[in-house]
Each structure stands twice: as C-alpha cells, then as structure tokens.
C-alpha cells in the first residue's frame, strides 16, 4: 500500500504502467488502486472517438494527439480492440497507426481487448480512464472498437463524443436512424478525399438540423487524417465543446451522474455475486436451480422466491428476530 501511494506521487510512467496492468487484470490490488484514484479524478477532459471499423479512428486519434502534444498537454490514450470469442486472444493493432507518437514523452498509450464486453469498450475502460485521470492527464482519448449501430458505452465514460464516419456508408435514411447516429457531440467525415464526402456532410447537416434547437449544435467536420487535413479545426471544436460543458454546468453534472451510475453497477455485480454464492451454499436453493434447469420449475417464480428469501433472512439477522 505504501508503495502504491508513493507511486501516485511520483507520477512516472513505469509505476503507472504497473498500476494499469493490475486494473486491467482486476487483481485484488486493483481495488486499492481504484479506491485511491477515486478521489483524485475528475479534472481530465475525456474524449471518446467511435465509428465503424476502418473509418480511420486510430489514425485520427494519432494526428489529434500529435497536435495536442504541441499544446503542452499530458495525454492519455486508451485504444480498444476486439477479443476473439473462440480463443480469448486479441490482436491489438491501434498503435501501428500512431507510430509518430512513440517519441513524445507526454503521450501514454494503453491498448485494451474487449474481453467479452459488447458495448464497444472493454469492461475495465472506465477504471483505466480513472487511473489516468488521477495521474493528472489533461486529456484522455478513448478509441472504441469498430462499432455498428448500437454500441455506445462510450457515452457513459466520455465528456465529448466524436463519431467518425466515411463517405458512402448508405443514404440519408441511415443518418436518421436511432442509436449511434444520435450520440455524437461532433461528427467527422474522415477519408473526405473519397467520392461522396459532400453528400455525407449534407445528410448529417439535415439530420442535425432536424434534431431541433439545442444549446450545443453538433458541428460536422471533413478530415483526411492521413494527410493531417482538418485536424486543427477539429481540435478547435473539441475545445469549444469543453468550454460549453463547463459553461452549462454539464461538466459537473456528467461527473456526478457517472459516479452514481458506477455505484449502482458495482452494487449490481456485487449483489449478483453474493446471490450466486448463497445459492451454491444452500442445498434447497441448489435443488430449485436444478429444477429450473430441467424445466420443471419456472424461472419467474423461482427468482422471486430466492431473492425474497435472501432479503427475509437478512432482515431477521439484522433485527435479531
């Protein structure tokens, strides 16, 4: 523990790397790291970058980082790539698009595999971001896996969400569908040197306008990340969005909501674990589960019975009756 607190004060990359490794693997030590970092977080601007596979998210994040690094900021990058459902292995290939960041001392990159999580992020992402935040990163960029229409876990972690798309992914109707198209604070049409870029921008413009009058109207950017084109303008709007969040009170509100959401999700998983342990300890409950397995008992009644019994037992224990 002493060592741990010491390394928080030191703020060197080696100890940060070691801490993130504990958190990534959810070791017993990681709980202590998270408790400790919990009070030190909240200052970093967290930017989520999402979009379909191959749209250029990694390249764009690389170029954005390069620019941000010249502004004398400390930058953390979290890149998520998919885990194989068959072997549990993963090929994490985002760093190859960010090679020019390797020599920048103020950029720290962590690659994560989804490890079974389906919302576009790894389940440890929020924890990893928290530790980076506590390590006094000014900006944290989260790059999601390549997403489809409904993977938007990033919304619960990031302050500013960028949706990166490319020209030619369907017609106007695609931009009007619910889901991923609604979540962005900033839209990016990358690979804008390809045909159809202007049409894509037009479709997005229509969609944004139709969304009614909002305090923050999401801007739409054209970029060619491989050629560094459009990056400065994009950074400008990201900064503007941060100012908007602070001005409107959303900066604080989002952090508070996140804290509560995290609490509830932790309670949920803790409870699920406790219930499971309890079932495994009690023969009569185990028998009920067996009956459900065989289809002789319905899961609706049984789940109520199990939970009611647990709570009743807890109450009688607490009040001595």
């Amino acid at each position, binding site marked *: 523990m002493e060592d741990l607190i010491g390394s928080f004060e030191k703020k060197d990359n080696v100890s940060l790397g*070691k801490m993130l490794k504990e958190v990534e693997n959810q070791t017993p030590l990681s709980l202590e790291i998270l408790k400790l970092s919990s009070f030190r977080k909240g200052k970093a601007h967290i930017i989520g970058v999402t979009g379909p596979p191959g749209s250029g998210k990694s390249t764009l994040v690389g170029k954005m980082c390069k620019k941000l690094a010249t502004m004398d900021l400390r930058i953390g990058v979290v890149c998520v790539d998919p885990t194989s459902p068959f072997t549990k*292995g993963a090929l994490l290939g985002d760093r190859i698009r960010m*090679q020019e960041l390797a020599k920048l001392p103020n950029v720290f990159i962590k690659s994560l595999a989804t490890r079974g999580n389906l919302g576009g992020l790894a389940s440890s992402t929020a924890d990893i971001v928290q530790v980076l935040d506590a390590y006094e990163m000014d900006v944290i960029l989260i790059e999601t896996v390549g997403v489809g229409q409904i993977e938007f876990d990033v919304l619960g972690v990031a302050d500013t969400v960028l949706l990166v798309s490319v020209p030619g992914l369907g017609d106007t109707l695609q931009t009007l569908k619910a889901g991923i198209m609604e979540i962005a604070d900033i839209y990016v049409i990358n690979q804008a040197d390809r045909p159809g870029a202007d049409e894509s921008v037009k479709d997005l413009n229509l969609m944004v306008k139709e969304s009614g009058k909002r305090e923050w109207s999401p801007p739409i950017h054209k970029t060619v990340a491989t050629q560094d084109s459009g990056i400065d303008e994009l950074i400008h709007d990201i900064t503007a969005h941060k100012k908007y969040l602070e001005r409107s009170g959303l900066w604080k509100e989002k952090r508070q909501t996140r804290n509560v959401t995290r609490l509830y999700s932790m309670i949920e998983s803790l409870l699920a674990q406790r219930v499971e342990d309890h079932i495994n300890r009690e023969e009569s409950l185990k028998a009920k589960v067996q009956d459900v397995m065989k289809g002789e008992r319905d899961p609706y009644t049984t789940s109520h019975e199990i939970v009611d019994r647990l709570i009743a037992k807890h109450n009688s224990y607490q009040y001595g009756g």
Partner: protein
Amino acid sequence: MQIKVVMAKLGLDIHWRGALVVSRMLRDEGMEVVYLGNQFPEQIVDAAIQEGADVIGLSTLGGNHLTLGPKVVQIAKEKGVDALVIMGGVIPEDDIPLLKEAGISEVFGPETRIESIASFIRSEVNQSIA
C-alpha cells in the same frame, strides 16, 4: 491471467510479414498481442511499460539483431521492466549464444512451430508470476 505480448519489428527492418503472422498465431493461442510495427529499442520498451507487457517479441531479418536486440534488454533493465524478451527471424546459429548471453531468453528461427513459441512463453511467464 491473459498474457500480453508487445510485438515489434526491430529498427528499420522492413520484413513485416513474419511478425504479423506470428502475432496472429499467438492471438489464436489466446494471447493479447499489441502490434507496434517498426520501432527502435527505446520506443519498444516504452510501449511495453505502457501496455504492461509480459513479453516483448522482436522480429528481425535485417542483420541488426546483435546491435539492437541486446539494447532492448539493457534499456528494459535500466527502466525496471521485467518482461520476457524473445526474438524471431533469420539469425545465424553462431549469434544465438551471444544473444542469450545478452539476456534474450530465446531465439526462434524459420520453421519453428507456433506451439513451441506459445508453450515457451506460457512456461516462462507463469514461472515469473509464481
């Protein structure tokens, strides 16, 4: 625990196919492989620090194994990184003892079966955890 490998092409050597094929195969062995592409020793070690790598895999067919290979081990030691460093590629037999002496744990030549690389990694990494 999932084994994490940082895989790099050493220095300016351009023969990337082997490193990618091995990365893919280690993925199929259930490991998480971070592919760096071409990097120099300092940057390879930095990536291993950031990624929390258990293994650093170096691929070279370009003749720089004796100069840059040991440098990776040396920088890793200086920075307090205890990852296993292994090497693959076309490397003359005579140079292998020199590499091992410099701290490269194992050298895998052409036609090595992926099973032998994977089982070497597993036994070494599990040993260092225990």
